[in-house]
C-alpha cells in the first residue's frame, strides 16, 4: 500500500513549485488587462519605458504583480522546505534527506534572488511576457529541486531536462534589442545566445541520454544504487564518459564550456545570474549522485578523466577570463574556473567518502558561489539599468568610478569579487579552503597546488574589475539608480558573502550534517 500522503509531503517542495507555476500561468491569463503594464496594446516603445524609468522611486508597481506573486510563492516553498518531512519515496526514486533539503533551500534562494533581480529588467524588456518568464523560472526550479533528491536515472534525466529546457527559453527571452535610435529591433544577441546554448545543450543531452541508456543496459535497473552492481567493462567506461561529457556541458567544464561566455553575454542578465549558478549546482549534485552513489566502485573508470578535466577547466577558465573586457564574459569564464575547483570536492568525497570533508566542502562551495556570483551579476544588472550607453553596457568600463557614484554598490561588488577570488574574510575563501583541505586530506595535494596556482591568475582579473570601480573615472557622477528589489538582492548577496565569511561555522555545520546524511 502506498502512503500517498507521506509521498506528497516528501515531495512538498517540487509539488508546491509546480502548483505555483500553474497558478502563475493562470494568473497571467486571468489578470485583468488593467493590471498589465501600460503599453500592452502592441509593442512597448522604449520611449515609454524611459518615462517609466524616470519615476523617482522605482519601487513596487502594479505591473510587477506577477513577479511579486512568484516571489511570494518561492518564499512559501522555502518555508515548506522547513516543514516538509524527510523520507524516501516508495520505489526509492526520490529521497528527501538533509542534503536534498539543504540544496532545495539553496536553489530556492537562487530563484528568489533571480526574481528580485529581474523585476526591473522584466518591466523594461519583456513586460508582456512576464507570466511566462516567472513560470519558466519556476519550471526550471522544479527540475532542480527534484534533482537534489533523485536516486533514479529516469527521474534524473527528466528532471535534468526539466531544469534545462526552460533555461534555453529564458536565455533567448530578450527578443528585442534597443538600437541607437531607441527603437526595438529583433534581439540578435539573445537569439544567438539561445541558439548556441540550445545546440550545444541538445547535443550534450543526447550524449547524456546515450550514456544513461548504456548504464541502464549494463545494470538492468534505473536505480542509481544498482549501478554499483555493474562489473567493470570498457562499455561501462564509455558510458560513464558519455554521462560525464553530457554533464560537462551543463557544468561548463572544458572543453564543453565554449557556449558559456557567448550565452552569458547575449542572455538577459537576471537570467544569467540564475543559470550561472543554480543549474550548475543542481547539475554537479546530480553528477555527484551518479558518480558517488552509483559508480563509486568504478572510481578508476571516471576519476582520471575527470581530474584531468578539472585541471584543464581551471586553467582554461582563468586564462580565458584574463583578457576579457566584457564583464559577463569575464564572469562566465571565471565561473568555468570555479566549477573546475568545485570538482575537486567531488574527488575528495570519492576518495575519502564519509571520512573526509569532500561532500560538505562541495555543498559549502555551492552556497559561497551562489552568493558571490549572483551578487556580481546583479550588480551588472543594476548598472545596465542606469541608462548606460548601449555600447559599453556590461563592459568593465561601465563600472568605472563606481565607488564615487555609489560606494555601497561598489563595496558590495568588491565583496563578491573578493569572494570569487578566494580572498580571506569573504565566504569564497572558506569555500576554497574547505575544498582544498578536503582534497589534501584525500591525497590530492598536487591538484590543490595546481588549483591554487591558477587561481592566482584569477586575482589579476578580479583585481582589474576592482580597480575599475575604485580607480576609474566615472562618466557621470550621479549615484546609480536601481529598482529597490534589485538593491535588496545585491545587498543580500553581499551581506551573505561577507557575513558567512566572518562567521562560516553555521553553514559549515549545516553542510556537514547534510553530507553526513547523504553518506550515511
Amino acid at each position, binding site marked *: 500500500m502506498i502512503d500517498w500522503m507521506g509521498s506528497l509531503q516528501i515531495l512538498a517542495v517540487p509539488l508546491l513549485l509546480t502548483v505555483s507555476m500553474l497558478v502563475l500561468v493562470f494568473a497571467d491569463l486571468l489578470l485583468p488587462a488593467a493590471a498589465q503594464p501600460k503599453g500592452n496594446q502592441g509593442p512597448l516603445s522604449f520611449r515609454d519605458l524611459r518615462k517609466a524609468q524616470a519615476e523617482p522611486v522605482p519601487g513596487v508597481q502594479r505591473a510587477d504583480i506577477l513577479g511579486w506573486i512568484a516571489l511570494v510563492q518561492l518564499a512559501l516553498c522555502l518555508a515548506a522546505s522547513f516543514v516538509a518531512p524527510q523520507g524516501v519515496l516508495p520505489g526509492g526514486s526520490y529521497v528527501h534527506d538533509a542534503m536534498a533539503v539543504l540544496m532545495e533551500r539553496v536553489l530556492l534562494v537562487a530563484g528568489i534572488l533571480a526574481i528580485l533581480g529581474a523585476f526591473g529588467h522584466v518591466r523594461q524588456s519583456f513586460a508582456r511576457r512576464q507570466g511566462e518568464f516567472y513560470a519558466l523560472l519556476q519550471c526550471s526550479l522544479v527540475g532542480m529541486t527534484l534533482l537534489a533528491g533523485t536516486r533514479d536515472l529516469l527521474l534524473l534525466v527528466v528532471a535534468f531536462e526539466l531544469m534545462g529546457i526552460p533555461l534555453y527559453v529564458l536565455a533567448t527571452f530578450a527578443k528585442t534589442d534597443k538600437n541607437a535610435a531607441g527603437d526595438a529591433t529583433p534581439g540578435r544577441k539573445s537569439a544567438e545566445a539561445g541558439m548556441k546554448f540550445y545546440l550545444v545543450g541538445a547535443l550534450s543531452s543526447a550524449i547524456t541520454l546515450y550514456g544513461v541508456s548504456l548504464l541502464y543496459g549494463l545494470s538492468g535497473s534505473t536505480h542509481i544504487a544498482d549501478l554499483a552492481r555493474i562489473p567493470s567493462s570498457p562499455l561501462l567506461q564509455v558510458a560513464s564518459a558519455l554521462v560525464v561529457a553530457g554533464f560537462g556541458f551543463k557544468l561548463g567544464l572544458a572543453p564543453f564550456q565554449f557556449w558559456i561566455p557567448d550565452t552569458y553575454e547575449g542572455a538577459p542578465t537576471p537570467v544569467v545570474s540564475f543559470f550561472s549558478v543554480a543549474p550548475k549546482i543542481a547539475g554537479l549534485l546530480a553528477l555527484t549522485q551518479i558518480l558517488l552513489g552509483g559508480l563509486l566502485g568504478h572510481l578508476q573508470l571516471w576519476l582520471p578523466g575527470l581530474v584531468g578535466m578539472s585541471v584543464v577547466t581551471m586553467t582554461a577558465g582563468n586564462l*580565458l577570463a584574463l583578457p576579457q573586457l566584457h564583464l559577463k564574459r569575464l564572469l562566465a569564464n571565471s565561473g568555468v574556473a570555479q566549477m573546475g575547483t568545485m570538482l575537486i570536492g567531488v574527488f575528495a568525497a570519492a576518495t575519502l567518502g564519509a571520512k573526509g570533508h569532500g561532500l560538505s566542502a562541495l555543498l559549502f562551495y555551492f552556497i559561497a558561489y551562489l552568493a558571490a556570483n549572483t551578487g556580481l551579476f546583479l550588480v551588472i544588472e543594476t548598472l545596465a539599468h542606469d541608462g548606460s550607453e548601449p555600447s559599453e553596457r556590461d563592459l568593465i568600463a561601465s563600472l568605472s568610478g563606481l565607488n564615487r557614484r555609489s560606494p555601497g554598490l561598489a563595496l558590495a561588488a568588491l565583496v563578491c569579487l573578493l569572494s570569487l577570488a578566494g580572498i580571506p574574510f569573504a565566504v569564497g575563501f572558506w569555500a576554497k579552503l574547505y575544498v582544498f583541505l578536503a582534497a589534501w586530506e584525500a591525497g590530492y595535494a598536487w591538484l590543490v597546488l595546481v588549483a591554487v596556482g591558477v587561481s592566482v591568475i584569477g586575482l589579476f582579473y578580479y583585481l582589474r574589475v576592482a580597480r575599475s570601480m575604485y580607480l576609474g573615472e566615472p562618466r557621470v557622477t550621479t549615484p546609480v539608480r536601481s529598482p529597490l528589489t534589485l538593491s535588496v538582492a545585491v545587498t543580500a548577496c553581499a551581506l551573505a558573502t561577507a557575513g558567512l565569511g566572518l562567521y562560516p561555522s553555521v553553514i559549515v555545520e549545516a553542510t556537514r550534517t547534510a553530507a553526513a546524511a547523504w553518506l550515511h
Partner: protein
Amino acid sequence: MSAFTLTRVDAALLCCAAPLLSFLILGLTPALRRTGRIAGYVSIAFAGLSTLYAASLLQGRMFAAASPPDIGQVGWLYAGGKLVASMGVQVDGISASMLVVVTVVALCVQVFSLGYLHDEPPAALGRYYTWHSLFLFSMLGLVVAPNALQLFLCWELVGLASYLLIGFYFKKPSAGQAAVKAFWVTKFADIGLGAGLLVLYVFTGTFDWSPQAVQLLGATGAAWTAGLFFLAVMGKSAQFPLHIWLPDAMEGPTPVSALLHAATMVAAGVYLIVRTYPIFQAAPGVLVFMTFLGAWTALFASIIACSQNDIKKVLAYSTAAQLGYMVSALGAGELWPGYFHLVTHAAFKALLFLGAGALIHAVHSNNLQDMGGLWPKLKISGTAFIIGAMALAGVPGFAGFFSKDAILDVLLERHLFAPWIALLAAAGLTAFYMTRVVMLALFGKPGHHTEHAHESPPSMLAPLVLLAIAALTLGFAGTSLATAAGHEYAFHLSTSGLIASSLALLGIGVGWLAYGKNAFVPGKIPAFAFVQGIVESSAVDRSFAWSYRVVFQGVSGGVAWFDRYIIDGFMNFSAWLTQMAGERLRAAQTGRVVDYLYAVVAGLLLLAAAGFWR
C-alpha cells in the same frame, strides 16, 4: 673617606656624563643652542667639569698604580638570559691618563674655538658646540670602555662626530665630500673591527680583553682578531693606504682638526691597540705587519708633507706619520713607547693645529704662500707654534723627543732595522718640513694677506700657552705617567736618540737653508723633484677614486640593471606570458557554434580515451 668622596667609577661616569649632559641640553633646547656663544660656554663648562674629574682620576691612579683597575658595568645585551655584553667604565692608569689628555685638549680646543669661530652665525656655533659635546662624550666613553664592544660603539660615535664636524661648513661642497669620504673610509675599515669583535666573542664568549679571554682565543683567534682590529686601526689612525681621508678632513674648522684629526680621535686607533694589547701580543704576525706598515706610513706621509702648501695639510700628513710611529712602536712589541708618543703627540699636535689656527685666523687663508712674515705680528702664537714644531721635530728637551726616542730605541732593541731606518728618515724629514712651515709662515716675505694680521684674542692664546707648556714639559712627566699606568719608563740617552736628534737638527738646518736663507730651491734638486712628482700624482687617492667609480659604481650599476631588467623583467615576462596565453586561447572561442560542437565531441573522445589509456 667622607660621604662626599666619589668612587673612581662614579668619577669616571661623571666625567663621561658631563659632556653627554651638555650634548643633551644643547641638542634638545634649540633656543639655547642658537645663542651660539652661550652654548659654547655651556659646553666649555661641562668640558671643564669633565677635565676636573679626569684629573682627579689620574691623580688617584698615580697613587694606586698597583691596584687592579676599577670597573663598573651594567648588562646591556642578553641572550637566553645570559649576559652577552655590558657597558660601563674601566679606570686604570692608561684610561685615566688618556682621559686627562682628551679632556684637556678638548677643553683647550673648545675655548680656542670661541675666538676662532667668533664670526660664525650663532646657530652654527651652537651646532658646533653640540657636536663637540657629542664628540667629547664619545671619546671619553671610548677611553673608559671596559670591553671591546663599548669601545667599538664609541669608536663609531667619534667617527660620527668627526663626520659632523668635518661637514661643519656643510654648504661648501668640498666639506661635504670630505666628511662623507672620511666616514666611508673609516666605515670600511670598521668592517674589521666589527668582524674582529665577532671573532673575539665567538672564541671567548665575551668582549673582554682580559688575559683569560686571550687564552681562550688561542693563536688563530688572536691572529684573526688582531688582524681585523688592525684594519680598523688603519682606517681610524690613517695608516697607509687608508690615510686618504685625513688630509681631506682638514675641510673642517681648524680647532676640529686639532682635537679630532690630530690629538684624540685619530689616536683612538692606537688607543685600541693599547687597550687590546694582550691580544695583539698573541698575534706576532700582525705585530710585524704593524711595525712595517707604521714605518712606511711615517716615511710616506713625511715625504708628502714636505711639498704641501696648505698648512693644515702639512700637519695632517704629519699626523699620519706620527701615528705611523706609534703603530710601528706598538708592533715592535712594547706598549709604553707607543702610548707615550700618543700622549705627547696629542699635546704638541693640538698645539700646532691651534697655532696654525691662529695663523689662519690672522690671514684668513690656509695657504703657506699667503702667509709669511707673521712673526712680528703674532709673537705669542708664533712662539707657541714654534714650540710645537720643535716638539714634533724631536728637538731634544721637547716632548716629542722623549717619546720618539723611546720608539726608535725599542725598534732597534728588537732588531727591526728597516722600520728603524725608515723612522729615522721620517724624523729628519719631519724636522725639515716643520722648519719649512715655520720659515714660510712666520719669517718669510710678508704678503698682502699679512697686512691686517693681528694677534689672536685671549680665548685663543690661553689654550696655546697651556698646550705649549704641556709640549715643553710632558716629556719629563713620562716616568710618572708610566708608573701610573703600571709601566716602567726612564729616560736614557740612547744611540737612536742621538741619531734621531742629529737628524732632526740636520733637517732643521737644511730647511733653514732652503727656506730661511733661500740657499737653494728644493724643487730643483732632481731626487727631491722626482719624489715630489710621484707624491703629487696622488696615486693612492686616485686609485681609490678609480675603484669607487669603476668597481663600486660599475658593479652597483650592473646589479641595478640586472634587478630592473632581468629579475624584474622576468617577473614582467611571466605576467606578459600569462596574458598572452589568455589572448591566444581566446582565439579558440571562435563564436561559431559548430566549433563548440566539435569541442564537445572532442572532449567526449578524450574522456573515453582517458579510460582506455589507463
